[in-house]
Structures are given as structure tokens and as C-alpha cells.
């Protein structure tokens, strides 16, 4: 017997071919539709770990890009607020210089100072999205005490300090205060009301009466490795100087002071407001630098993210046209296998035995 073929082996071969072709067809169809391997783990093996890692990093970078957008929005609001304060301060400085040289318009100056102080306090108390943006990391508490509220501690402390000064100097009338003494007061006890708290004697609450903000600024992670300070706080020196300048013009009213003393007050105010303007500009510049850093970090991360997206596709993707060609070929194969199975089973000698 040359070579023998058993009936069982013939039918088994036909059946197993059919099953294999059908399994291959379903996989090829899935690849054609999704554009990725049907079973990533089987196709990639150990390199699946690398694609998981890439996806991880992709999501991480995406998340940082999103949070950078939030942070940039907040910084924008802060900058606009600082712009407003700066403009107001510069106008006030111009008015101060005008009054010193011309010695009229004092009443208008006082009311301008009052308005400016109100708007300064309002701006420093601004909130965005539930956070007080000038409160530092103590963002859930309104930072600055309203000077104009009845019984405000900051106003009370300044009024007391002035009253003490008048009593200590023994002046019969406010108009008797000489300019040198006034300057000394303004640079001494008055300035102390805007400075750090001290135990005394006598105990002075100082800037604590004005602001509960934290000295620590809010910081955020702007890239995978950088953390930056993304805000400012109401305790900064330039805000104190602005408050000082406005308060001394508005609260130590011109009525009653003699003209030279009044001029001394104006000079002090000009000093303070100029220093505050310089400070504000510096603060804005620092924040602007951070905004630049955020922007460049976002740009860099966007490019990285896109590159990673392509790499992930490289690992996991299949050529859809190739998969579609495979589907067609396997369909033909299944068709042929089915036809053969049917035809070969009909070939039997039993059909011809009577």
C-alpha cells in the first residue's frame, strides 16, 4: 500500500482548516475596523509595557497642559487687577504733585484719596472661582479689612495713634503742628501702623489690622519638573505704601492743618506713592515672567504630547488597508474551505453501491 489516507484524517483536516480561517477572519475584521491590533498583548509582547508607559506619560502631560490653562487664566485676572491699581496710583501721583505746587484742589484730593482707598481694598479683596487671589495661600479668607466699615480696627488704630500724637505733642489745635513733627509722626507711629506687629511696649498690631493674607504665595506645578509661584499677596510692601499714601491724605484731613504742615504730608504721600508704583511695576514684571514660563512650558508639553501620541499609534496601530485586504483574502479562504468540505463529503463509494 503506497500511502493510505484514513477517513477520519480527511474530515478532521477539513474541519480544522475551516475553524482556523474563521478565527483569522474575525481578528482581521476587528483590526480593519479599529485600526489597532486585535490583541495588543499578543502582538507586542514585552513592548506592551512601553506603550502603557507612553499612555501614562501622555495623560500626565495632558493634565499639566489643562492645569496650566487654569493657572494662566488666574494670572491674567491678577495682572488686570494690578493694572487697575497702577493706573489709579499714577493718576493720584499726578494730582499730588499738582496740589503741592499749586496749593489748591486739596478737597478734591481728599475725596480722590478716599475713592482710591476704597477701590484698592476692593481690588485686593477680589475673588475668582471661590479663591481670594491676593490672599496668598490663605485663599478662603477675605484678606483686607474694610477701612470704611463701622468700628474697623485699622481706622481705629490710626485715629488712636494720631490722637496720642496730638496729646503727646501738647498742641492746642491741629493747626499748631509744625511740619517737622508731622513728618516725624508720619515716619514713626503712623508708619508703624502699616508695619509688622510688635509686642511693645506698647503692643502694636500694625499691618495685622489691615490684612490676614498669607506671606506665602500660591504655587503650582507648570511642567513635570517645575513649580512656580503664580500669584501675589496683599502683604507686599507696595500695597502697604499705597494704603499709607491714600490714608494719610484722606484720614489726616487738610482742614485744620497749616499749609506748610500740609505740604509736608503731601511730600510724604508723594514718596510713598512713587515707591508703591515702582513696587507694583516690579510685581507685574515678575508675574509676567512666570506667565511667559507657563506659556513656553505649555508649548513644549504640547509638542511632547503630540509626539507621544504618534509613538503610541506606531506601537498599537495596524495599516487599515492591509487589514482590509486580509479580510477579503480570508473571506475567500473560508468560502473555499466550506465548498471543499461539502464537495469532498459527497465523494463516497456508498453512492455507487446499488
Amino acid at each position, binding site marked *: 500500500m503506497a500511502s493510505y489516507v484514513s477517513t477520519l484524517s480527511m474530515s478532521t483536516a477539513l474541519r480544522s482548516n475551516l475553524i482556523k480561517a474563521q478565527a483569522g477572519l474575525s481578528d482581521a475584521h476587528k483590526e480593519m475596523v479599529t485600526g489597532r491590533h486585535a490583541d495588543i498583548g499578543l502582538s507586542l509582547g*514585552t513592548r506592551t509595557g512601553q506603550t502603557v508607559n507612553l499612555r501614562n506619560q501622555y495623560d500626565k502631560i495632558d493634565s499639566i497642559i489643562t492645569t496650566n490653562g487654569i493657572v494662566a487664566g488666574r494670572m491674567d485676572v491678577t495682572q488686570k487687577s494690578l493694572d487697575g491699581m497702577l493706573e489709579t496710583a499714577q493718576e493720584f501721583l499726578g494730582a499730588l504733585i499738582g496740589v503741592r505746587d499749586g496749593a489748591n484742589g486739596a478737597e478734591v484730593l481728599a475725596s480722590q484719596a478716599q475713592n482710591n482707598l476704597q477701590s484698592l481694598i476692593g481690588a485686593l479683596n477680589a475673588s475668582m472661582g471661590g479663591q481670594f487671589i491676593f490672599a496668598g495661600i490663605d485663599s478662603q479668607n477675605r484678606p483686607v479689612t474694610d477701612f470704611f466699615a463701622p468700628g474697623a480696627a485699622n481706622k481705629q488704630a490710626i485715629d488712636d495713634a494720631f490722637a496720642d500724637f496730638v496729646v503727646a505733642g501738647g498742641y492746642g489745635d491741629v493747626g499748631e503742628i509744625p511740619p517737622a513733627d508731622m513728618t516725624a509722626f508720619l515716619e514713626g507711629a503712623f508708619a508703624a501702623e502699616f508695619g509688622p506687629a510688635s509686642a511693645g511696649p506698647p503692643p502694636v498690631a500694625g499691618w495685622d489690622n489691615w490684612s490676614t493674607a*498669607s506671606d506665602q504665595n500660591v504655587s503650582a506645578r507648570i511642567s513635570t519638573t517645575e513649580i512656580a509661584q503664580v500669584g501675589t499677596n496683599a502683604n507686599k510692601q507696595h500695597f502697604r505704601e499705597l494704603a499709607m499714601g491714600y490714608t494719610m491724605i484722606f484720614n489726616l484731613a487738610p482742614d485744620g492743618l497749616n499749609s506748610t504742615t500740609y505740604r509736608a504730608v503731601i511730600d510724604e504721600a508723594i514718596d510713598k506713592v512713587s515707591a508703591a508704583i515702582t513696587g507694583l511695576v516690579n510685581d507685574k514684571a515678575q508675574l509676567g515672567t512666570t506667565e511667559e514660563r507657563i506659556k513656553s512650558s505649555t508649548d513644549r508639553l504640547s509638542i511632547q504630547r503630540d509626539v507621544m501620541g504618534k509613538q503610541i499609534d506606531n506601537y498599537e496601530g495596524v495599516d487599515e488597508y492591509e487589514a482590509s485586504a486580509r479580510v477579503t483574502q480570508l473571506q475567500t479562504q473560508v468560502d473555499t474551505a466550506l465548498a471543499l468540505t461539502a464537495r469532498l463529503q459527497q465523494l463516497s463509494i*456508498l453512492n455507487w453501491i446499488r
Partner: protein
Amino acid sequence: MSLSSALNVAQSSLSALSTHSQILSRNVAGANDPNYHRKNVLQSTNFDGSIRVNGIGRAVDAVLFSGKLGATSTTATQQAIVDALEQLEATVNDPELDQSLGAKLGALTNALQEFGVTPDDPILAQTVLTKATELARSLNEASQVVSDVRKGAHSDMSDGVSEVNKLLAQFEQVNTAIVKGTVSGADITDQLDKRDQILSQLSQQMGISVQGRANNDMVIYTDSGVTLFETVPRAVTMGPASAAPLDRAVYVDGVPVTGAGAIMPLKSGLVRGAAIVRDEITVTYQRQLDELARGLVEVFAETDQTGGGLPATAGLFVDGAGSVPPPVPPPALPAGPVPGLAARINVNPNADPARGGDLSKLRDGGLAGAAYHYNAENAAAFSGRIQQLLTELGQERAFDPSAEADSTTSLAGFASSSVGWLEGKRQLAADALGFETARLERTTDALSNATGVNVDDEMTLLMELERSYSASSMILTTIDRMINSLLSAVE
């Protein structure tokens, strides 16, 4: 007289042809049975011309048969490994679905990043807690899957052992019958078929090699050389009794054949595949899960902020249920690999409002006690601790090298490396299974062609038998007529 001898010959022809028909019908009946070997009649001619049936012959091919036994065993090994790896892969799944532990760790990291930008938002804090809880739960569930796979492999091993014992008992019966039949000259072809069937089933469980002896007796050895059957079956057990059930090895005839202490380890078979799954694959994967859990506990650990010298201790992730308030003194951090940590890891209840904790501790620290409070000013937008955690998450750390994943990498890198290890093993096992299955198919095919039945062939033979039978019957009737006419001539 030659007429009577002609009668004799014709009659012997008829009986031989009936035996042929019987064998033919047995062949046709066994055409679809993969264990059936084609039979034929061995006949010879006597000196007086009559036909004698000497016995029933059986188509054999010893080489192909032992090849088929080997292929069955190796296929069973790989199948066991592939099936277990498929189950383990459920803990990872398609990377796009983000179900792997690495992806869940990434989700926690991103939630922390968002929280770090707006630390005063309690919704973001809740998101961090939720992601952390998901991660801990995924680790617990993955551990459960590994434990289930391990138990499944163990029960496969013990089932395999009982199956082997049962088959060896059956083998003893059939073998004895064959030896007796060979000695007495009976037709033992059906028993031979049955014995080969038992051998096929046995090779599924363990790799075997067989040797024939006098009188068709057979001896079975494992493929590593330990005696399974020699006149009587040898004991196949799981032991020793002193070991924990999941650590027991398979003993054949007192010799351990699986596990690290095996002197003559099995090379193939379901039992070997299950032993690899139970003793190597699941153990290594569990180590990876436990190292991941340990890394988590360490990354989120809190240090004493008061300078009081208290040890660093577990923060957001704790071993076990944890307690509110935190225990004093605080428990020490794990120093090295901790077996079973992945099954026990949990989120510290001091962070969970539903269990008596406080969400703000996620931002402020203090999960391990008041001395571990980081937010000195108690400010709402304090992000120092969060940024510290994010930095720590990105740092490289050392992992146990016996976990077979990247041993110096970040926590996320280790999780990805673990995925790569599992999928790599799966790809290798699937390729090996494909190869072994193809080999088994080819061998089975060849064996079937050598020893199987072709129904068309048998039917053709039947037609010839039919004709010979009619011819012999006709000879009988003719001789009968001839004798009748002779006898009637005498009257």
C-alpha cells in the same frame, strides 16, 4: 476422495470469509474513533488446501504513536500556561481601556496635579480620594485574581494526580488481560486499542515514555525517567503532608517530580504546566503586585514635621484597615518586600469622611497623627505637601529584583514593566502553544493515516468478499449436486 476435500476447502473458505466480514464491520464501526487501529485477518493455507485463520492483525506505527504521546503532553503544558496567563491578563487588559494598575496610578497622579493647582477645592480633594480608593481596590482585586489562578492551578494538579491514579489502575487491568491473551493466543486487538487509548489520556496529564516487554507487556516511565507502571502501578501523590497545601509537590513512586526540590522533574503534561503556573508565574506576578503596593505606601509616607524624632510612617496608603484616630506610636514603614501587601492595602480612613476622617488631610498631611501635619499656617491653598507627593511619585526607587520587572525605576515605570513582563510571557506561551498544536495535529494526522480506516477501501473489499462468498457457496451447492448424482447412480 477429492470431492470431500473440495467440500472441506470450500467450507473453510466460507468460515474465513465470515471472519473477514466480521473484521470489516469492526473496521467500519471504528472508522471515526481516533483510538481505533485498523485490523486485518491473518490467514494461511494448510497442506490440504484449506484456509486457516491464524489471528487478527493490527496496524501499528510505534514511532508515530510515541510522537503523538509527546506532542499531546507538550501541548497540554502550554495550554495550561496560556489559559492561566489569559486569566491573569484580565488585570491588565487592552492599554486603551486604562484598566491596568499603571493607568490607575496615572489617574491618581493627574488628580493630584489638578488638586495641587486649586488646593482649596473640596471636589478636587474628593476626586483624589476616589482615585486613590480605586487604585487600592484594583490592587486588592488583582491579588484576588492571582490567588484564584493559583488555587485553580493547584486543583488542576491534584485533579491530574487522581486522574493518573485512575488511569494507571485501568491500565493494570488491560495490561494483565493482554499478557494473558497473548499467552493463550486469543484476539487481543481490542484490548491493545484500549491500552493505547489509556496511554493517550495519561500523556495528557504527564509526559510519558513506554517500553514493550515479552508477551506484549508494557512498562510506563515519566518523561524524566521515574517509573509509573511496572507490573503494578506506582503511587502518585501530592506531598509532603507537612507542607501547606498550595506548596505541595507531586510525588511519583516517592520521587518529587514538580517544584524546586524535584530531582527528576517532569518535562511536559498538564501537571507540569499547572505546576509552572502555581509555583512560578503566579508567585512572581504576586511579587510584582506586592512591590507596587509597597512603593505606594512609601511614596505617600509622612515624616515627622515637629522634629520630635518620630519615624516615617504610612500616610494615604496603609496596610490593612487602618484606624481613626491613627494609632500611637505609629507603625514603622515596611523595610523590604512584604508578601500579601497588595491584598491588604487600603486608603487611610483618616482621609475619608465616610469613615470618620477629613478630606483636608489630603492637602495638609497629618494622616498618621498630629505630629505629621505639614500645613503650618493651615492655609486653604497650601500646595507644598501635594507638590512633594508629585515629586516623590516621579522619583526612581529600588524594587525587589526577584519580581522580574525593572528593579530601578519610578513607581509608574515599575507598573508598566510589570505589564510588559506579563504580556511578554503570554506572547511566548501563545507562540509555543501554536507550534505544539500544529505538531500535534500533524502527528495525529500521520498516525491516523497509518493506522486508521478508510471506509471507501473497506467497502470495496466488501464487494470482493461478497463475490468470493457467492463463488464458494456455488462451489458447495455444485459439489453437493455432484455427490447427489453419484449417490443416485449407486441406488
